[in-house]
Structure formats: C-alpha cells, structure tokens
C-alpha cells in the first residue's frame, strides 16, 4: 500500500521515555471543562441548577463574545453539517480565511493575505501541539487530521497573536481542540465513499477506566482520487491515501489536577507530479509521490492552585517525515511549555510562561533541492507575560503583554500587544488592539538551494536561501465590534490596518536569493452574522474584504515577490450557510462560497456550493449524502509552486455514522 516502510521502533522507545520524564499545557488558554450531553443534572442542587446555562455553546460563546480579538469558532455541529471530510475544507467556513485547494491533497490556507503554498504567517495547533513546519514555514495540511466527530471546536483568531503564541502567529492562529476522553464514551464507526472521495472509514472507541480516568482509541483511513490538470484536462497523479491511529487518556482528580496523555501516528502517500531540473540540464516530468508519516505524543498537566490561580505544564514530541523524489526530510520537535495564571488583586490578572523548543531536522536532497547544512539543530527559548487590568468592573479592561524569544536565525525577538476591551452591556463588545508580531525565517528561506532550470546556454535559474535574513515584521492595528440582537442574532465585525516590514523578497536574476526588501500595508474588514431564523433553521453569513499594497525598497532588483504578495489573495470573499432541521430526523445543509479572482495566479473568481442531506435513523445511526462543488465539474482555486496544479472537482459521497 505504501511505498516505503520505515521502522518506527526507536522513535517509539524515545517517545515513551520522554513521556515518563515530561508532562504538559496548552499554550492555549485553558477553558473550563464544559458540560456534555451525558451530564447528570440530577446530581445538582437547585441552587446549582440555577447556574446552569441552557445552551451548551452559550458559556463558550460568552467567553468568545468578550474576547478582544477577531476570533471565530467552528463547532462540532458546524463541521458535521458542512459535510467536509478534512480540516482545511472546514476552514472555508471561517469568514476571512482563504482556502485554496491546488491539488487533491494540498491546500494553501491564509488569513489577511500573503497566501502561498506554505501560508507562512498562520500558526496552526492541534490540542496545543504546533503543526507549523519549521523547514518550509507553513503547514502540510495532508499531515494534519483528527476524527472529525471528536473535535470539540476549532478556534480561529485572525490577526497577530505572537504575545501568547510566539513567532509565526503573524496573520492568525488556528487552534483545533479535540474533546476530553470523558466526553467521547462509546463507539463511533463511520464509513463511506463516492466520486473523488473513493473510500473513507473511521473507528473510535471510548471507555471509562475508573471514576477518574477515561480513554479513547481511534483509527481512520482515506483514499482520495486525484484532480484534473489545468493544462490538458488529464487526470492528475495527486491521488492520496492515509492511515492514522491514535489515543487520548484523561485523568481528573477532584477539579484540581487534570492530566492528559495523547498521541497519534500516521502513514500515507500524497501523490503529485512535478517538473524538475537535473544536473545534466534536462527538465523531466516526474511522478514524485510523497510518502508521509509521523508519530507524536503529548502530555499535559493542569493544576488548580487556588480559586484564582492555576498552572499547566505541557510536553510534546512530534516527528514528521516526508520522502519524495527530490527531497527527503525528517523533523523532530521537542517542546516544553509552562504557564501560570494568577489574580494579584481585584485589578490585575497575570499570566506568564516559559517555553523551550528543540528542532532537529535531517534532509537528503537532490541536485534540484538541497539544504546546506543538510542537518540542523535549532533551539528556541521563550518567555511571556501578560497582565489583564480591570479598569472598571464588567466594563473596561486593558490587556498588555509581550513575548520574548531567542532563536538561532535572528537572535532575540519581542512581540508586544496592547488590547482594550469595552463591554458596555451583555449584548455589546467593542475592542481595539495594537500588536507587533514577527515571522522568523524558515530553514528553507535560510539554507535551501532550489534549481529550477539548468539548460545550456541559458543561465541556471535558481533560488538560494540567505543566512542574513531578518524576521518579517508586522505592526497591526485592529478594532472590532460584536453585538447580540435578541436571542437569535449575532453580528461580528472587525477592521484592521497592518504595516509589514522586512518582507521576504527575491533579489538578482538567474541565480536569485532571498532578502528582506519589501514592505507593505494591508487593510480590510471581516464580517460575520449568525441568525437563528426559526427553531430549526440557522443561517450564517460571512464577508471579507482585503487590500494589499506591497512596495519594493529602492535597492531591490526583482518584482517577483511584490507581485505574488499583491496577487495571491482575493479582494472579496462571501459565504452563506444554511442549516435546516426537517421533520423525521432529516437535515438539509447548504454552503455557498464566493471567492474573488487571484491576479497573480490567474485564478478566476469562483463559486463553490456544498450540499448535504443527513438522516438520523433512530438514535444510533446517521446516513448522509454530500455534494461538494455542486455547481461546476471542476474549477481552479490556487496555484502551487512545488507541484503541478490540478483543479478541484465535484465530489459526491455517501456516509454512514454508527454510534453505540
């Protein structure tokens, strides 16, 4: 099934050893455990009952509602009813997030511009584990997966979050949170298939180990068809398959200690077709499927120290490996994070933390792509402190803090932020923020040589990394307003003005190299509206506008990056989703997305429409049929650089979900 089988043995031994030593937190703000569907209200006194909120989401919404940043939350229900089969497709539902599928197993995802095959300004975490690849700066979306039914929520913050999250959280943070094992009791089996989605299946079993500990194990597999070549309409070589398994264990002692232990391992093949240069000067067309695999383990210990203070300690180990015709690499990341929050007095709420990350990579290149040095070890030390100052109780808050970090590429970095939160009443929130964030150069931008073409008598076309790169810098000014109108409507609008400096440029002709000679201003707005039209019909609308002005410094010699920055992101995006409950357990859900054209990629505007019909057959069984790209047979969404682009095709599949 898979091209190569590598021994996992030593990594597993190491992982277990490390687990015994370490343990661990979310760099992620800790949220109170939420009541779940099996919660027994009968054990509560009447006074306690009076404190329980009627809607499950309201508690979290309340928190989100009063967050002084451009946050948007996708719930498990959003994901289930959208009919998506993977995480990047789910992110289309977030207004302002651009998701460009450029071959059947690759996605370019970004917020507020600067999208590329590797959206380098977006930080992505799964249960507190960063999945941003330090080698290429960005996220390999084909490596990231969870059981969609086990997702608690996906929190998306647009705008910089470097103070809490560290480098590379420049334009946004995506935080995928899976459920506590306590909430995933029982078994779920899903299976299905159709056109494009050839076959997919998943199995999850959750069990109660004793009164304090719960566990779950899962396994999932998919096999997807390739896309259609833009150039000639031929079938792409980008079909893919992947097998992933994992576990999660949660132990809780009387609301004081909570220990989480979780891990995943995957092994897959992501097909692609590339054009490569050879040392002899030929350009060849290679079917260079990538073999991907990686285990990870994470442990986290949360402890409540008092009514007003808590701490968390998190440790994880993550290995990701990719093997293709042109490049083989493995990356090992060890990460240790400590966080402590405490209330100093009525005014001051502090949170501070320390972090250490150790990144070891190992590359084996070819003539076309090579790293110098081939292997590298990088260490990142970080510390942060933030104070939430209550100026007037329940009315005005000021939040100030900064992250300090030392890395091997650019040395010391600081990422401060200031936020003001005004909540005149329960139904209105107004906030403003000023933030500085940086993106440190990726290993590829520093150490890689990539030769595109070497045909005599022409000069060699290549791009080389540079050791002298500075961090890309952002100063962001944001404002936002949220309002609830009655019980049924919620509006959220944000506006931002961003100033970037030292953006990466490409200098020289022929043999080019990276530099920092571009600066830019961007501005835009994001708008979201939620409407519970009737008891069983929910409508969600989103719109975003974005303008990017990139400029070369006078000493810069090439326009390549400037054009890319300005032309890789749509000016306008619009979406409308409808979630409708029908009688007899039927659900009818439609999503409509409009994405403006991308001038640099010559990608025309497109409309994507997804439709899902679900039927709950009794308590345990759910049957659904979904069509993605209902309105056209195929369309282009983005252009990749490392592989030949294929177009997104219409997907039709049927799915069975069985719970017991």
């Amino acid at each position, binding site marked *: 099934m898979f091209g190569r089988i590598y021994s996992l043995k030593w990594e597993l031994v190491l992982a277990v050893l490390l687990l015994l030593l370490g343990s661990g937190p979310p760099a992620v703000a800790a949220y109170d455990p939420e009541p779940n569907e099996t919660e027994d209200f009968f054990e509560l006194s009447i006074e306690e009952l009076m404190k329980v909120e009627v809607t499950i989401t309201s508690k979290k919404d309340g928190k989100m509602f009063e967050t002084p940043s451009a946050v948007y939350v996708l719930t498990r229900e959003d994901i289930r009813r959208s009919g998506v089969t993977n995480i990047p497709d789910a992110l289309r539902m977030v207004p302002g997030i651009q998701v460009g599928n450029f071959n059947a197993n690759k996605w370019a995802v970004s917020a507020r511009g600067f999208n590329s095959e590797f959206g380098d300004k977006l930080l992505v975490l799964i249960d507190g584990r960063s999945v941003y690849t330090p080698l290429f700066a960005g996220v390999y979306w084909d490596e990231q997966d969870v059981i969609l039914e086990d997702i608690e929520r996906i929190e998306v913050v647009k705008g910089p979050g470097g103070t809490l999250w560290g480098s590379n959280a420049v334009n946004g943070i995506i935080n995928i949170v899976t459920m506590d094992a306590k909430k995933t009791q029982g078994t779920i089996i899903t299976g299905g298939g159709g056109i494009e989605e050839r076959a997919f299946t998943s199995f999850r079993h959750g069990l109660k180990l004793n009164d304090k500990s719960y566990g779950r194990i899962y396994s999932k597999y998919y096999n997807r068809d390739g896309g259609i070549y833009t150039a000639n309409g031929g079938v792409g070589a980008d079909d893919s398959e992947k097998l992933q398994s994992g576990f999660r264990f949660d132990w809780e002692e009387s609301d004081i200690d909570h220990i989480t232990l979780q891990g995943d391992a995957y092994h897959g093949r992501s097909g692609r077709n590339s054009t490569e240069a050879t040392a002899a000067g030929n350009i060849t067309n290679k079917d260079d499927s990538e073999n991907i695999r990686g285990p990870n383990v994470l442990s986290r210990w949360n402890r409540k120290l008092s009514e007003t203070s808590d701490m968390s300690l998190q440790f994880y180990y993550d290995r990701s490996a990719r093997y293709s015709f042109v490049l083989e690499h493995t990356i090992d990341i060890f990460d240790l994070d400590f966080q402590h929050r405490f209330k100093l007095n009525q005014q001051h709420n502090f949170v501070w933390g320390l972090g250490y990350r150790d990144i070891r990579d190992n590359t084996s290149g070819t003539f076309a792509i090579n790293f110098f040095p081939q292997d590298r070890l990088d260490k990142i030390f970080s510390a942060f402190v933030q104070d939430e100052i209550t100026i007037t109780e329940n009315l005005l808050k000021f939040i100030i803090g900064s992250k300090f970090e030392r890395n091997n590429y650019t040395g010391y970095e600081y990422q401060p932020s200031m936020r003001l939160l005004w909540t005149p009443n329960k139904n209105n929130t107004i906030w403003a923020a000023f933030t500085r964030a940086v993106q440190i150069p990726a290993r590829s931008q520093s150490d890689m040589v990539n030769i595109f073409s070497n045909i005599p008598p022409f000069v060699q076309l290549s791009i080389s990394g540079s050791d002298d790169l500075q961090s890309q810098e952002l100063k962001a000014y944001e404002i936002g307003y949220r309002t609830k109108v009655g019980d049924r409507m919620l509006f959220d609008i944000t506006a931002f003005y961003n100033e970037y400096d030292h953006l990466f440029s490409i200098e020289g002709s022929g043999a080019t190299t990276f530099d920092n000679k571009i600066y830019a201003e961007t501005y835009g707005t994001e708008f979201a509206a939620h409407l519970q039209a009737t*008891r069983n019909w929910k409508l969600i609308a989103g719109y975003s506008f974005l303008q990017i002005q990139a400029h070369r410094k006078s000493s810069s010699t090439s326009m390549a990056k400037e054009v890319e920055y300005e032309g890789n992101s749509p000016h306008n995006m619009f979406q409308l989703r409808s979630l409708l409950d029908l009688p007899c357990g039927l659900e009818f859900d439609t999503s409509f997305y409009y994405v403006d054209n991308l001038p640099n990629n010559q990608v025309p505007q497109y409309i994507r429409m997804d439709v899902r019909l679900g039927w709950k057959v009794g308590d345990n069984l759910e049957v659904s049929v979904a069509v993605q790209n209902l309105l*056209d047979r195929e369309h282009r969404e983005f252009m990749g650089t490392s592989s030949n682009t294929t177009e997104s095709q219409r997907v039709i599949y049927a799915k069975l979900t069985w719970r017991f």
Partner: protein
Amino acid sequence: MKLKNLIVKNKVYILLLILILAAVSSVIADTKTGAAASREYRIKAAFLYNFIKFIDWPQEKMPDNDEPIIIGIVESEDFIKAFDPIKNKKVKGKKVILRKFDKLGEMDENKDQSQWRHKIAALKECHILFFCHFANKKTQNQIIKDLSGFSVLTVGQADGFLESGGNINFIKERQKVRFEINLKTSKQNELKIKSRFLKLAIRVIK
C-alpha cells in the same frame, strides 16, 4: 474566463431557489426540535425532580409504602427523552415515575364530557404536572381549574401561567432557567412550599 456574468447570475438563482425551498420547509417543520432545546428540558427535568424536595403534599396525597410519586408531562412532543432520567429516582423514600399526556389539546370538554372526566381523573393522580407545549390556552386553563384543590403542583413555562392559576412557572433569564411561584394558588392546592425555596424564586405572588 470560466465564470461569465450570466452563469454567475444563474447560479445565484439556483441558490435563491434552494434558500426559498429551505425557508418554506423550515416554516412547515417549525415545531420540531434541536439539541439545545433538549438540553433545556433536561435541566427543567432536574428542576421538577428537585421541586419534590421543597414541596409538602397533604398526608392523604402522599403515596403509601410502595406507591410512587408521579410526574406528569403534558404535550412533551420530542422532548420526552429529556425527562427519562427522572425514572427510578428516589426522593423522600419514594420512587418517582413519569407519565406522558399527549393530545389533550384536541379535547373539548363540552363535546365529550366522559372522556374529559376520564383524562382529568388521570391528571389528578399526578403530584407534579408540567405543561410542556400546550398550544390551546383555553383548554390548559380549564385543566388547571379542574385540578384546583386536588394537590397537583402545576408547572408551566409560559407568560401568564401563574395568572391563569398555575403554581410554578419557568422563565429563561440570561440563558439560565429561573422560576416564579404563585403562593396563593399553591395554598388553594394545599401545597406547603418551604421558605428556602420561595427565596430562590424571582417573583412570588402572595
């Protein structure tokens, strides 16, 4: 260019059509349920169960040895499952059981006296009667009137429920379940309400 204006226009029509269809079917289906609503009823079920602890029924109404305390749910629609946890609970040393009363709204007491009496007799056996979804106000008020003096704690969740003779009314305030009490009608029902419980009510009619 693949997407000519005309095509875009047509697609928007398709979308509009689907939305209109959705709207129409939604209006047709507006009586069905959602997960959030079911949570609300699970909370209310726990409230009903708790009420037993704070209410003293007259001696003759209290069940004998093995007999259960009966909670009746009127017009539960799809929410009856939310009340399931009540079953087999024990309070004051008595088992609690659940009874479902549907389709009361279709009865007309003038037309079918005997059937009406029959139903009312069944309702009188309850210790607590919760009016879940009762569309027909007139019939509801008639039931409350007919049950008056028979020590059935009537609980509702509608504006004006207390004014029309009910004993306790659920109110949703800031996403939380609260309640108000009509002490006058409770006394008529010979129900003794503990003072600690009265203090929790957001409104008490005396």
